[in-house]
């Protein structure tokens, strides 16, 4: 959800600010985890979680002090962004729920869901590495807010979506599929990002989502 939102922000030249991304991730994760753990994952729970998370996050925006210059950076702190956050949260919720409760969909539908989860998780971990690296090196949030660009992000997400779908749909051997997913993600990050260390970190950025997706879907 957070990375879909990040893509929208990059496309509309709204700052991708590491502190707010971290806060957003924490609140959304906490809301989703607690609703699923304490209540369940029905239609009503989905509606509650997708509305409560963005509203609580908006309260944070309203009461917290700005940490970057609002004259230079546009931030997603207006009321209307609640609806965008609800929409991307609902979309992500639906995809992941279909992935876990996969009775109704076929092989191709499952491959699309897995590719979606894989691409956005790799993109998120790769973005976290990039922003954290600059944050730790400079301690300047305004420099960090300029780290990501829409074109490279789109190249990475779309290519990972394609590779993910092809490998999840056509390769049935789990070991070969997992190795190919991780290696292709590393190669794509290296080719698009043109950075060796970032590509090396991609081993973890891709390995973690591939492992988690396998663990959650292996009973099928």
């Amino acid at each position, binding site marked *: 959800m957070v990375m879909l939102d990040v893509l929208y922000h990059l496309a509309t030249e709204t700052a991708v600010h590491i502190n707010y991304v971290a806060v957003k991730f924490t*609140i959304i994760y906490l*809301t989703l985890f607690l609703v699923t753990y*304490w209540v369940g994952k029905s239609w009503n729970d989905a509606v509650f979680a997708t509305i409560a998370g963005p509203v*609580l996050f908006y309260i944070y925006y309203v*009461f917290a002090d700005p940490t970057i210059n609002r004259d230079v950076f546009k931030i997603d702190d207006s009321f209307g962004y609640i609806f965008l956050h609800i929409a991307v949260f609902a979309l992500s919720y639906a995809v992941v729920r279909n992935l876990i409760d996969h009775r109704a969909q076929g092989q191709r539908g499952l491959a699309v869901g897995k590719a979606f989860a894989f691409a956005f998780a790799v993109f998120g971990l790769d973005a976290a590495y990039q922003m954290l690296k600059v944050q730790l090196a400079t301690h300047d949030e305004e420099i960090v807010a300029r780290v990501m660009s829409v074109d490279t992000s789109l190249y990475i997400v779309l290519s990972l979506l394609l590779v993910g779908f092809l490998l999840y749909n056509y390769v049935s051997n789990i070991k070969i599929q997992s190795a190919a997913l991780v290696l292709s993600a590393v190669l794509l990050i290296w080719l698009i990002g043109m950075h060796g260390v970032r590509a090396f970190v991609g081993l973890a950025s891709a390995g973690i989502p591939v492992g988690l997706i396998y663990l959650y879907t292996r009973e099928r």
Partner: protein
Amino acid sequence: MNKKLITAIVLGIVGIVFTFTPYKMLTRTLHLGLGLRHNDHIMIGIIALTIAVVAVYALINRK
């Protein structure tokens, strides 16, 4: 007493105090600043509020 009810009440109060109380009142009058910045107080408050809100939802949806 139900654990979720206690969670909702306690964290609801903590969340409201840390999120909505002005910084000076929290640090000087109430002495609850804990040496933290304003945004850290808001973060603590929002996390507490999130847990409290979901606890209330869980209480309403008790099966």
